[in-house]
């Protein structure tokens, strides 16, 4: 077997990587110590960041890709995949992350957007995950090459409401495609500004054609269970792991909750005695400039 016969960065490899994450919890970490805690707790991957979303909200200013030093330290400290975020449209940051060797790039609304257009993700060897609030947004990202979608929710709030709303909206729209003929699908594709072939695929599969995680406000094992019951393939937990009183306990409990999401008796056990979760912000009280989910299109 000669090495030049190998094919890299194919769509199958990118989407396949995302499939290996299913049924798992991806945790935000800012140091290698936190990454080790996440791995110990059973996280399937970590998201390397300069600051968790709740702190990005507090600090204000421009939020950018993390310092490569932090990301490299985290890569060296764990064997699970390491992801990192770039600003929407900032393909230079994405090129840097690819050169570092991160396993997946998150083009994220949590950072300050660099462009009104998103990165052309098909050009990269490394797979991307992107946020979406509705089916049109999800399919536009997939068309650009995203190998995984996460419902946006409202990051850094610890309030699950927006994550629920986005998951319901995507699931509901896909269900409404059932039984539609080709003309009707074309009309939907135009209305939601999405590629017709992808809309067709959603009708037939009755789900998104790529893995779909929930994100943005998940703070407790019950929140994780709720999102899994709504059809998420797994969850991202940002500030919800390292903001609570006891991160180790919370991290393990959320992993267990994803695995036992449909077992209320087990969830009682899992949810008991975890200490205070993150305090959080009611997402309904955010002012216009504080809302992250409306970044991107």
């Amino acid at each position, binding site marked *: *077997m000669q090495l030049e016969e190998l094919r*890299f960065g194919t769509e*199958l490899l990118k989407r*396949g990587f995302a*499939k290996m994450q299913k049924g798992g919890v991806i945790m935000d970490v800012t140091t290698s110590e936190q990454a080790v805690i996440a791995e110990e707790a*059973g996280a399937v991957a970590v998201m390397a960041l300069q600051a968790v979303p709740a702190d990005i909200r507090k600090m204000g200013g421009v939020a950018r890709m993390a310092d490569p030093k932090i990301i490299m330290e985290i890569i060296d400290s764990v*064997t699970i995949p390491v992801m990192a975020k770039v600003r929407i449209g900032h393909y230079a940051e994405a090129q840097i992350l690819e050169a570092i060797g991160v396993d997946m790039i998150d083009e994220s609304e949590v950072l300050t957007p660099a462009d009104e257009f998103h990165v052309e993700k098909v050009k990269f060897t490394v797979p991307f995950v992107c946020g979406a609030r509705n089916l049109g947004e999800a399919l536009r990202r997939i068309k650009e090459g995203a190998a995984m979608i996460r419902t946006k929710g409202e990051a850094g709030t610890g309030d699950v409401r927006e994550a629920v709303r986005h998951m319901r909206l995507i699931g509901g729209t896909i269900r409404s495609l059932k039984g539609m003929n080709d003309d009707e699908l074309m009309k939907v594709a135009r209305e939601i500004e999405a590629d017709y072939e992808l809309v067709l695929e959603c009708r037939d599969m009755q789900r998104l054609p790529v893995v779909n995680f929930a994100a943005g406000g998940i703070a407790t094992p019950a929140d994780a269970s709720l999102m899994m019951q709504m059809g998420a393939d797994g969850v991202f937990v940002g500030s919800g792991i390292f903001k609570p009183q006891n991160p180790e306990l919370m991290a393990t409990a959320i992993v*267990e909750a994803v695995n036992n999401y449909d077992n209320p008796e087990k969830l009682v056990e899992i949810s008991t005695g975890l200490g205070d979760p993150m305090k959080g912000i009611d997402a309904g009280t955010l002012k216009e400039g504080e809302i992250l989910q409306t970044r991107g299109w």
Partner: protein
Amino acid sequence: MVAFQGDVSEHVHAMERALGSEGSVVAVRSMGTVPDCDGIVLPGGESTTISRHLARTGVGDEIQVAARSGVPIMATCAGLIVISKEIVEETRFEPLRLLNVRVMRNAFGSQRESFEADLKVEGFDSPYRAVFIRAPAIVGWHDDVDILARIEDMAVAVRQENLMGLAFHPELTGDLRFHEIFLDMI
């Protein structure tokens, strides 16, 4: 089908296609199911995560008992790591020590180095398109392990009596030749 984490639904789908009407696939997420199964599949996913679930729930012990009594096991990617005897530089978890091999995690590198390749497989009359995703590879093995496919000097498909270990993902490509071998073992 060990169903804690990973590409479980793809595995279920591929196995159901291979089975036709000759059997059914059940998901295992707690103790009590494994002893009734005629074959066990450990899917791809994150080996650290899957191992923790196997240990916490006791399903890992059940699999060891079943494997030692001759129940066929098909283990792919993370599953291969989990059933190995030894993992290079791994101290975070204990594998099930069933397959007499020494396995290296992420043997080819990170996701950037993940690849597809047409493999020459022992006993197959045409190449097998294999998908390697942050794949492990077998760097050492005991005499009782048959090597079915290699990449350079590492093994990527092996068989040891009732155990089949694959470093790649036969559930992602639609080519069911490895599934058929597995079903013949039952």
